[in-house]
């Protein structure tokens, strides 16, 4: 999922580890830290105390900024990969740094450093401060710790699990794929885990910490039949701990990948043109992400460049359509205890009973619209300033039966698996790629289909949703991410089976 944006501005090299972090690596795991889950992590590990934060914030406000914040990050990532039957490669990465933001009205100054020393932070703060050019002010003298729920409670961290415990999972994915079908000729499998520790300290006296896990186990396979090859893949993941990754789950991942791939030998490309489209439950919620989610991010509306800029309070869909963006679903990939500005995770209703209700706000846009922030201020890392972003976006279940939705279509397509969504914010035109689905003919699912792009217009699509079933599913993968302004953040989506009465299918004539 990415917004149309002609290029990523900055080819920032990935940041690396801080010195202190590296000196505490323990044996057994790939890259790890000793303290699994601790409070006041950045103070105990790196000596970042309130006095230091206050001095840096004062520097960031020294030229008259309205507001400043510090975003500390320490992220550890590991990859263990199998190819051609062997777990023969591993990658590790550590990101440590602090981003310093000064806000003046709607203007942002931003500097960051990889060294958590006061000297380096003061230099970055001086850079951020240049966005303003008046007399300075001071930050609040005390910081109050932000309270929040925990939507991803963890018994342990994957980064603290020994490598030897991870290898059987990856091997099981590989072996099960080959056991399930003689058509499988290549398997790649892998386990990725990362943990991001972050701390926000703001000039208006808020201090918040979080530990965000992200992980997934996947199979990527190639099958061959009568000289033809097809590829497919599947993963499970999210904000999980190691107990989620059982050998049974590894087998299930393999089965899903194999089933989704071998069926492609019978798949056709559908005819091109406008036709009814039934979205199956789960990952097809990517359509909502593109068709409405991005257009509801408040920064676009503040600039008046979104097609939804003047639609709040208006009817945009039938009364049985309600769409939310929700940070509070346990272990879901887009869930957040607090956002990257220190605002507690929330559930935001975008469309309620067919009426457009709320944009997705960060602090800057919330201030502009004079509303409370919705907890959507997110950033890729300390190297990026926050902007409004989605979390878990989905449509609530309706009352129809999924079989009845399919039966209602004389000729159209049924979408099961999708990827590569994209939207043009101002026009509302969007597209997503169907990697797997089926034709619908006379109310019945018939030939499998694959490799077809579907296009539509967001506001038009919403009015074209004519049936919503009762079978809401959330995507359970751990790889979903969304690109905007050169930043990627993890997110998820969900969808009950629903009928869109007309969209443009980019098939063959």
């Amino acid at each position, binding site marked *: 999922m990415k917004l149309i944006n002609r290029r990523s501005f900055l080819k920032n090299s990935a940041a690396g580890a801080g010195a202190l972090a590296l000196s505490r690596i323990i044996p057994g795991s790939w890259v790890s830290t000793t303290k699994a889950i601790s409070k006041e992590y950045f103070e105990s590990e790196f000596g970042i105390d309130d006095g230091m934060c206050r001095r840096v914030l004062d520097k960031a406000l020294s030229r008259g900024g309205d507001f400043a914040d510090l975003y500390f990050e320490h992220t550890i990532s590991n990859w263990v990969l199998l190819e051609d039957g062997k777990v023969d490669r591993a990658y590790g990465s550590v990101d440590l740094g602090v981003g310093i933001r000064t806000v003046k009205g709607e203007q942002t100054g931003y500097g960051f450093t990889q060294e958590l020393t006061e000297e380096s932070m003061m230099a970055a703060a001086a850079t951020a401060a240049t966005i303003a050019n008046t007399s300075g002010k001071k930050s609040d003298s005390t910081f109050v710790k932000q309270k929040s729920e925990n939507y991803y409670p963890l018994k342990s961290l994957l980064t603290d699990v020994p490598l030897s415990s991870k290898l059987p999972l990856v091997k099981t994915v590989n072996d099960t794929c080959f056991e399930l079908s003689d058509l499988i000729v290549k398997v790649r499998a892998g386990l990725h885990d990362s943990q991001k520790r972050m701390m926000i300290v703001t000039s208006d006296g808020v201090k918040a910490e979080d530990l965000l896990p992200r992980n997934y186990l996947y199979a990527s396979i190639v099958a061959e039949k009568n000289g033809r090859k097809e590829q497919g893949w599947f993963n499970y993941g999210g904000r999980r701990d190691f107990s989620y990754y059982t050998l049974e789950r590894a087998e299930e991942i393999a089965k899903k990948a194999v089933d989704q791939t071998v069926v492609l030998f019978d798949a056709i490309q559908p005819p091109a043109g406008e036709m009814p489209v039934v979205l199956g439950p789960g990952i097809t919620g990517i359509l909502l992400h593109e068709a409405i989610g991005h257009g509801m991010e408040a920064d676009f509306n503040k600039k008046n460049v979104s097609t939804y800029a003047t639609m709040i309070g208006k009817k945009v869909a039938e009364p049985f359509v309600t769409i939310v963006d929700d940070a509070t679903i346990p272990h879901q990939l887009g869930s957040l205890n607090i956002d990257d500005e220190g605002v507690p995770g929330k559930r935001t209703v975008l469309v309620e009973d067919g009426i457009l209700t709320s944009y997705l706000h960060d602090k800057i846009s919330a201030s502009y619209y004079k509303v409370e922030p919705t907890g959507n201020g997110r950033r890729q890392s300390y190297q990026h300033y926050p902007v409004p972003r989605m979390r878990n976006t989905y449509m609530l279940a309706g009352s129809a039966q999924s079989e009845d939705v399919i039966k209602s279509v004389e000729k159209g397509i049924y979408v099961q698996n999708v990827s590569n969504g994209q939207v043009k914010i101002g026009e509302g035109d969007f597209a997503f790629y169907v990697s797997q689905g089926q034709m619908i003919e006379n109310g019945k699912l018939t030939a499998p289909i694959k490799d077809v792009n579907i296009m539509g217009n967001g506001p038009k699509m919403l009015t074209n949703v004519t049936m919503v079933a009762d079978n809401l599913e959330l995507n359970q993968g751990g790889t979903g991410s969304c690109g905007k302004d050169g930043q990627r953040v993890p997110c998820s989506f969900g969808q009950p089976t629903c009928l869109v009465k007309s969209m*443009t299918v980019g098939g063959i004539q």
Partner: protein
Amino acid sequence: MSRDMLDVCSWVIETARKAGADECKARISKNRFVEVEYREKKPEKIKEATTQRLDIDVYVNQRYSSQDTSDLRQESLKEFILNAIKNTKLLEADPYRTLPDPSYYEGRANIDLRISDPEYSGLTAEKRHDMVKEIEAACLQRGGDKIVSVTARVNDEFYEEAVMTSNGLEGHRESTECWAEAEATVQDEGDRRPTAYHWAGSRTLRDLPDPESVGRVAAERAFDLLGAKKIDTETLPVIIENRNVRRILGGFMQGLNGRNIQQKRSFLADRKGQKIGSDLFTLIDEPHIEGGFGSRLYDGDGFPTKKRILIEAGVLKDFLVDWYYSRKLGWEPTSGDTTNLVIPPGKRSVKEIMKDLGRGIYITGFIGGNSNSTTGDASVGIDCHLFEDGELVQPIAEMNIADNHLKFWHKLVEVANDPWPYSSWRMPSLVFTDVVVSGV
């Protein structure tokens, strides 16, 4: 600085070998960048920082891992390296994992690629602000009362790296880039607010095009999007604008990749020497273009770069095979990377070509879509215009093209004379015939 960076690489390698690594590769990189963005005639975003990173690949008893860190202090690095080697030993052996045979490092060109601006340190904050103001002003002036929003940006970057292996490779590279960009959003009918982009970049500030032109063209491109409509599905000639060729060609290039070939994920794997496109389809990798965004003297394996013809008159000549996958395939390595990709330009302008074609589609952007590297099937949404008798007559919304790369490149009937200079993929506009464009 290069000697200091190489000295750190040398120490990393020595430490790794003492700790039990058979072989090691170390690369240190530094990056400094600045971005200034304006909206409503005042700075909207200012960002500035410097980053550094060490990447190490370790090889222990046919086992391999790769890691990165920004902490270049010796005491921290030592523990980092020891831990990496200890864990690498837990992996399974892979006999193909080695550093390249050092004979493949030989023959590096001794030329100045002119990819680093000697005057870069003279680029001041004031100059950046002046440029971005000029971009914004030009866009606003050209856009007039149709403009909803203009965002103007400049950014620049200095990059330096040193690379070394335990078997004799040494490399150092320094480069700079400067970019200017504008986004213009205009009011269309109803709630449609199309946004267009224009940008330009160069290795040196001196070569950066006039900022005024960047802003002006962004506004003009936004005007071109006004009044978009859907049209019927039909079969038409199609021109893909130079800056957008990369999106389609990128799907094709997946088939050339050595890893995809070895992993049976390439639709081109068994087609070397075969005709896979029209006579006009020639694709060359040119690493030594002065000031090129992809110009470099050595590739990711440390091999010297050289001109390579990948496709010649529609015949597949060469794959992109790095050292590791060459060993798995039992082939000679070429290079796993591309540098500056070039399709030799033709003689006529897009305008002249349009006139001859009569009626067709001019693609100015892509949306969504994908390309399957295993089968070659591709389907992608397009931003486009209908043209008739050499003139753009109607912007089109919600349109798509779908084809297989093994058929599509045979439909290439002309190459325009306008290679896009602001990318390492220097593609001219390409003309294809008999393309199904699906709409209503």
